């Protein structure tokens, strides 16, 4: 069990890093030929950093767009942030103190994720416009997340698993000193689905995570008069007649 898992884990990690890296490389190296921030836009880099922070931390644009989607989306993502930090205890030894200090929040993070996902899924099914734009993969993605979160919560509240063993397995992966993994169904489901998530990440709409940072309407400065912007694909953007 432990061995199969270890191999899968390495394979998924390599795929995740390489495929995602290639995508990010593509975004970073494709020129933005024209100045197209959605205005009013900041005029300085500091301002752009502020706009980006508001976008990533508070989902500013989504807040303007739709309060329900914002609420559920924000609950889900910030629940996830808490859970991810909480999970760092499986890979740190001794557990970093800031990770240890938020352990108690973990289950709440999981529940916030669950509520967020449920709300988003209901909207996708009930609001005619959102139903119209949804395809199978949109529903499957929600199902996958629900299953990962659900199996996690099951381990917290219903069938506790041997987390000491899970931890030694995880540390073993990092140190290339492979250890066995508990074979309770919830932990197996939880880990398998997480690997699935890692594998599909770079090939799916989850690319919104790196994408937001490269969005030219959000990361460009509004200074075309003050500073000449060039296309990046022409040696001279101005052909003399």
């Amino acid at each position: 069990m432990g061995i199969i898992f270890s191999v899968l884990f390495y394979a998924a990690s390599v795929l995740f890093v390489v495929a995602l890296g290639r995508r990010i490389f593509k975004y970073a190296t494709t020129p933005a030929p024209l100045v197209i921030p959605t205005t009013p836009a900041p005029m300085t880099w500091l301002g752009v950093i502020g706009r980006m922070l508001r976008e990533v931390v508070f989902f500013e644009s989504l807040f303007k767009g739709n309060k329900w989607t914002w609420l559920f989306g924000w609950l889900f993502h910030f629940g996830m942030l808490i859970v991810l930090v909480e999970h760092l205890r499986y890979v740190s030894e001794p557990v970093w103190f800031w990770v240890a200090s938020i352990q108690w929040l973990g289950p709440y993070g999981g529940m916030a994720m669950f509520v967020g996902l449920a709300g988003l899924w209901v909207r996708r099914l009930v609001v005619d416009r959102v139903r119209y734009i949804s395809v199978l993969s949109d529903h499957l993605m929600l199902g996958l997340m629900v299953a990962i979160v659900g199996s996690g919560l099951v381990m917290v509240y219903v069938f506790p698993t041997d987390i000491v063993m899970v931890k030694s397995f995880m540390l073993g992966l990092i140190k290339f000193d492979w250890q066995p993994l508990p074979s309770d169904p919830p932990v197996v489901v939880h880990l398998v689905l997480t690997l699935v998530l890692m594998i599909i990440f770079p090939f799916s709409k989850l690319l919104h995570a790196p994408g937001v940072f490269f969005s030219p309407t959000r990361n460009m400065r509004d200074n075309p008069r003050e500073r000449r912007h060039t296309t990046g694909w022409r040696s001279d953007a101005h052909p003399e007649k």
Partner: protein
Amino acid sequence: MTKPDFETPELTLTQDVPAVQPGAMEHSKPFVAKAAHQEALGFPGELVDNWKEVALDKMSDLLKTYRSLPVFLDSCVKCGACTDKCHYYLGTGDPKNMPVARQDLLRSVYRRYFTVAGKFLPKLVGAKDLTEEVLEDWYKYYHQCSECRRCSVYCPYGIDTAEITMAGREILASVGIGQKYSNEIIGKVHKIGNNLGLPKPALADTLDGLEEEVKEDIGVDVKFPLDQSGADVLVIVPSADFFAEPHVDGLIGYAKVFHQSGISWTLSSYASEAANFGIFVGNYENMQKVAERIRTAAMELGVKRIVVGECGHAWRVAYSFWNTLIGPFDFLDPKFPIPQHVCEFTNDLLSQHILRLDAEANDDKIVTFHDSCNVSRGSRMGNQPGGQFIIPRQLLRAACNNFVDMSPETTHEHTFCCGGGGGLLTDDLLELRVKGASPRMNALQRVIEDEGVTHMAAICAICKSQFSKVLPFYGMGMDMIVSLHQLVGDALVLDNGH
């Protein structure tokens, strides 16, 4: 006017979101460009035999040269926040007019040919083969988007459907199916210098006529100089300003402002157009070629400054793109913004007390202001973000005692397009234009009822033409729409006379 074969949406004081009505605007598409109009722009005259290959090559090209495309096509999570933001969806209920669905027309093909998931699991991720039906859908629905960027305000990733529409139109033109209205107009600018195809003698005549008209009207010798070498300022206006109503009153307004300021200025017959429809078809080369005439004219006339008249997309191109397209402007006076909007120009003179406005001249009016989409979401005025909202309102408040804003979810960055932007201002799209105007009409109706508004000012040639046409459909007078600089001109205190 023949009776239209569609119904004008009912005015509602609040903006309702319609239920999804698939196919509601399936019949709407503009006339296709003739071969001559395509070829003049460097596009094939008719649908090429290997169109599929050409289209995919073009798409691959665009994906490499515009970062917005791969980022936007990959990042959409189908959250739906944009689905009720487009005036064309609000006015028609056709789901393909929801911004995300409009993007999906291109995205499904992108997925099929350019992504791993779409190559192997097309059904799962909504990937589609590029077929004639898809091409047909592109032609219809990429001509039901006015590239107004409203959707991009609310998208958590800033996805701007206008960028997708521009790419879609460029691909269409590249396989041989361009839009008649826009392409014909771009051809005229390349050949003659303006959208109307107005040659120099006709232009000179028109301007002489205006001088006489103003003289008769107010008894002052306000000049409309043409091709005057050595003038300080080259003024670039949308050609509609030369003769269309209410545009021409705006031009008279600029002329009065220049007259009173004493700053020498000139129009150019070679660059007699501020509009740049190159942006509408999304084609860099054509956009640049149109803009290039302005650089040439400015150099030949030896001016120190360039001021741009009231036109929305023209200002976006001028403000945001000119420096890239035809810069650097090292031959102009760096003390002034390059280019400068006529509203900035007038506002500066007002704040320096060089001009004086007597707002009583407009006391017969209660005025509101329509923020043009391209000015609001694709440009700036002044030296702080949002100046594009502040400066026109400052001018209006100075020129009119009665100014009221429409409701905030329909102004500033949230403004609705007039319904005729983005190359859709053509009679073959009249139904779309009337329906797309309904969100603005609803907001206007509200201030008419609540505040007794009599006039709506605008700073865009397309908005002005569009409203003149569609206001009557909603039972409002076509002369409700006025140029901002008409109000300024009427209130301006001139030294010799008023």
